[in-house]
């Protein structure tokens, strides 16, 4: 009986795992972000995002794993605009993982919310449950006008019609970093060795990525910043992305 309650107790803790191997986390400093969207194009290039075309945008069927949202405040002339990049938060208590009928999306041992295209049967339940609206469905099989397909990244699957997709924290780069670490003799991946495409491109250095389990990593220190918060925190999704509030100097 005791063993059973112990086993059950683990489901009361946040997340599915007692501890993560790596706990990939990102911080986005909104006081540095300029809204330039270099990250958006970098993600498109790295992850074989399709060129959906004008018609699909009209139907609200665009696919942008990372988007920059803008929010206005006030009225002219006292008007302010604030940007916030929004991408899959890799929630440790992801609302999208439980309802998937085929477990095509689940939380892995590195704190990532995975999306396995082969398993996905396209019920789109996960997209409905995601409060951040960061899941995108392939309503069509998209093509690239020749020779644009020459640019496609061979380390990332090209998705077909009928599957969901979303930000993976550039799992292909994480995989490669782990591979290189193994080549060097079974050591851990060091801070700064793996950066997703968006983080690498950001001109203002607003995004930082790393392993929260490594107390010396930049991201672990930034995640404790006083300006840190999580979007829609009250929903208890336990996101892996910590945003740092933009500073309002007038207080």
């Amino acid at each position: 009986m005791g063993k059973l309650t112990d086993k059950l107790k683990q489901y009361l803790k946040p997340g599915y795992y007692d501890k993560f191997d790596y706990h990939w986390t990102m911080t986005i400093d909104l006081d540095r972000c300029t809204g330039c969207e270099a990250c958006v194009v970098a993600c498109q290039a790295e992850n074989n995002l399709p060129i959906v075309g004008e018609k699909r945008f009209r139907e609200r069927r665009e696919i942008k794993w990372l988007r920059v949202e803008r929010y206005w405040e006030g009225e002219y002339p006292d008007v302010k605009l604030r940007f916030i990049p929004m991408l899959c938060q890799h929630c440790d208590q992801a609302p999208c993982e439980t309802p998937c009928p085929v477990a095509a999306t689940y939380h892995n041992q590195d704190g990532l919310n995975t999306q396995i295209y082969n398993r996905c049967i396209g019920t789109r339940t996960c997209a409905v449950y995601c409060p951040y609206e960061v899941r995108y469905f392939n309503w069509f099989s998209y093509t690239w006008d020749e020779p644009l397909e020459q640019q496609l990244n061979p380390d990332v699957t090209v998705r077909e019609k009928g599957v969901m997709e979303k930000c993976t924290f550039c799992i292909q780069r994480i995989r490669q970093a782990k591979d290189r670490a193994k080549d060097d003799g079974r050591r851990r991946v060091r801070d700064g060795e793996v950066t997703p495409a968006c983080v690498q491109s950001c001109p203002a250095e607003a995004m930082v990525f790393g392993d929260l389990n490594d107390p010396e990593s930049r991201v672990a220190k930034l995640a404790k910043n006083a300006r840190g918060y999580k979007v829609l925190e009250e929903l208890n999704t336990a996101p892996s992305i910590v945003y740092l509030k933009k500073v309002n100097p007038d207080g």
Partner: protein
Amino acid sequence: MSISVRDALLTFKTPALIGLVGVTGFIAGYLIDMTIFTDTAPKQPIDFSHRIHVSDNGIPCLHCHNYADTTPAAGVPSVSKCMGCHKTIATDRPEVMKLAGYWENQEPIPWIKVHDVPDFVYFTHKRHVLAGLECQVCHGPVETMDRIARVSTLKMPWCVECHTERKVEHGRDCWTCHK
């Protein structure tokens, strides 16, 4: 007049059995196609014999497939690598003359891929070789083959079985192999 549910259903007994036989036949036909009608050892443009090169002449795997322990792809040797030996060795054999023909035209030999995994799979030879796996574990007794044949299914359950048995670190996590 009323009849029982059992009696009502029994009128469909024969059609249901026909359907069942049909479905079973379909599955059987598919499996036959996958095994008997699948060519696991297709004829190659040149009848290259691993037996002659490996068993008889003692060439190690990594001599030709030199990228296997350094890159994700094992690689097939370039035409120039073959010509390295065959410029002078066995030049009278008809298959070697075919090779010389390709080299003269500076054309690559269009080998038919026998071991293939789908594009959505990340498979790295380097990791497996460096983990100490002998090539024969997956590729079978290549040194005895006159024509290379696929002996393993290369399908996911086969991969997962080995990953489970050998307790590969995070080997059962989907994202380890699925891109």
